[in-house]
Each structure stands twice: as structure tokens, then as C-alpha cells.
């Protein structure tokens, strides 16, 4: 599955647009991490635990989107956008969406023999 945040997949041409596909996941923090975060709130700096947690969750959401696209018979997703929202105290939703398309690699353009 080719993923792209652009209007097209670089080096490929779009044969057919299928449908909008999306994936989401709602995650809550856990007590141990929250405790560490409380301490970090005093001294400042990066919260590695949360960074990893959110990264994992986004990967899961992306995987769900890919599964949907695969079910449609697509081989690429273009125009991918991510969004995050706090839906409840301590829980956040990670949402990703894009357009499932069928693409094929562009034929390499041969140099023009008459230009030289």
C-alpha cells in the first residue's frame, strides 16, 4: 500500500478514484505514565512515554485505514490527513483519513532525441 499526503503518489499516475477511507482509535493514558507526567510537569521537557503512546495509536489508526482501502481493492491512499481531538478527560481520539485510489507507475520519460 502506497501512502501519500499529496494529491497524487509521486512517480505514479492515478487510474481510478475509489472512496474516502478512514481509521480511528481512541486511547486513554495509564496511571503510571500519568504519574511520571505529573513529575515532568514540574521540571519540563519531553514526555517520551506519551510520544510513544501516541505514535503507536496513530500506527494502529493508519493500519485500520489501510485495511479498509485493501478491502476496496485499492493499492494506494492519497491526500492523507491526520487529526487529533480530546473527546473526554484523559482520552484522545486519533483520526486519519484519505482517498483510496488505484495507481500505476509512470513510464519513465525517455530523453527527447531531437533536443540535442
Amino acid at each position, binding site marked *: 500500500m*502506497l*501512502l*501519500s*499526503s*499529496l*494529491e*497524487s*503518489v*509521486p*512517480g505514479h499516475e492515478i487510474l481510478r478514484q475509489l472512496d474516502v477511507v478512514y481509521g480511528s482509535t481512541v486511547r486513554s493514558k495509564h496511571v503510571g505514565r500519568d504519574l511520571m*507526567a505529573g513529575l*515532568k*510537569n*514540574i*521540571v*519540563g*521537557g*519531553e*514526555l517520551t512515554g*506519551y*510520544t510513544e503512546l*501516541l*505514535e503507536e495509536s*496513530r500506527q494502529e489508526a493508519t493500519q485500520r485505514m489501510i485495511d479498509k482501502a485493501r478491502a476496496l481493492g485499492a493499492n494506494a491512499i492519497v*491526500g*492523507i*490527513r*491526520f*487529526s*487529533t*481531538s*480530546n473527546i473526554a*478527560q*484523559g482520552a*484522545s481520539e486519533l483520526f486519519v483519513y484519505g482517498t483510496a485510489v488505484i495507481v500505476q507507475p*509512470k513510464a*519513465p*520519460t525517455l530523453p527527447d532525441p531531437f533536443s540535442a
Partner: protein
Amino acid sequence: MDGLILQIVLFLILFTVGWGFGRHIEQKHLRELDEKEKQFAHIRIDSNRFVETQSNGQLVSSNVVISHDYFKYVLATIRNFLGGRLTSYESIVERARREAIIRLKQQAHAIGASHIMGVRLSTTELGMQGGMVEVFAYGTAIYQPS
């Protein structure tokens, strides 16, 4: 009366610890950012959506969560009464953005790309008192087919 004194002492301890460690961590982070920005300066980024290229591309993404320190929290609370720019929080968000972009470039570098297109940045506030901010960056890295 004792309770009040204890609270004031606790506040002062947190305030000083926040100021000391917060400053130290921030300055260390800023030095690291400067260094890494120089290291990855050769990777170009743009936010253009419409692209015509012969090369292949791949989605890259990165995120970073940064928390405030107690000193900044107190400053911001005072500022909230008076209104105006919250300079102490501006620096946190800026650090988070620069870090996210550097990580994005690191990922592009790892797959041998020299250009990231269609970069989008999103910022989310996490946590109870709003002390934590997450910056998520994503884009399409362009690399020459091998």
C-alpha cells in the same frame, strides 16, 4: 497557620525547582535543536500539495510531546489575569515544532530522501491543566528509485 506555611514552602520549592531544571532543560534542548538543524539542513521541506515528479515517495510522520515546567506554569497563570502574549508558552510550542520537523527530516534521511513535500503540522493540547502539548508533523518524502 502551619498548613499555610507548608503550602507556601512547597510552592517556593516547586517554583525554584521548576525554574532551575526548566531553564537547564530548555537551554540544552535549544542547543540540540540548533545542532541538529544544521545537520539536516540539506533536506528541503515544503507544504506544496500538487507535485509532478518522476521519483518515488513515501509517507513519513513524527510527533513530540513536550510539557511545561512549574515556573512557566506560574508565569502563565499570572499572565492569564493580565492578558497579552504568553511568552513562556510560546517557547514550548516553538521547541516542540522544531523538534517534530527535525524528527521528520531524520526519518526522511533514514530512507535516503532529500526532499519532503506536502508537510502538515498539527498541534494538540493534552493533559489536565493544559500543560502538555503535542506536535505532529507528516509529509511525503521523495527519493530517487534505486
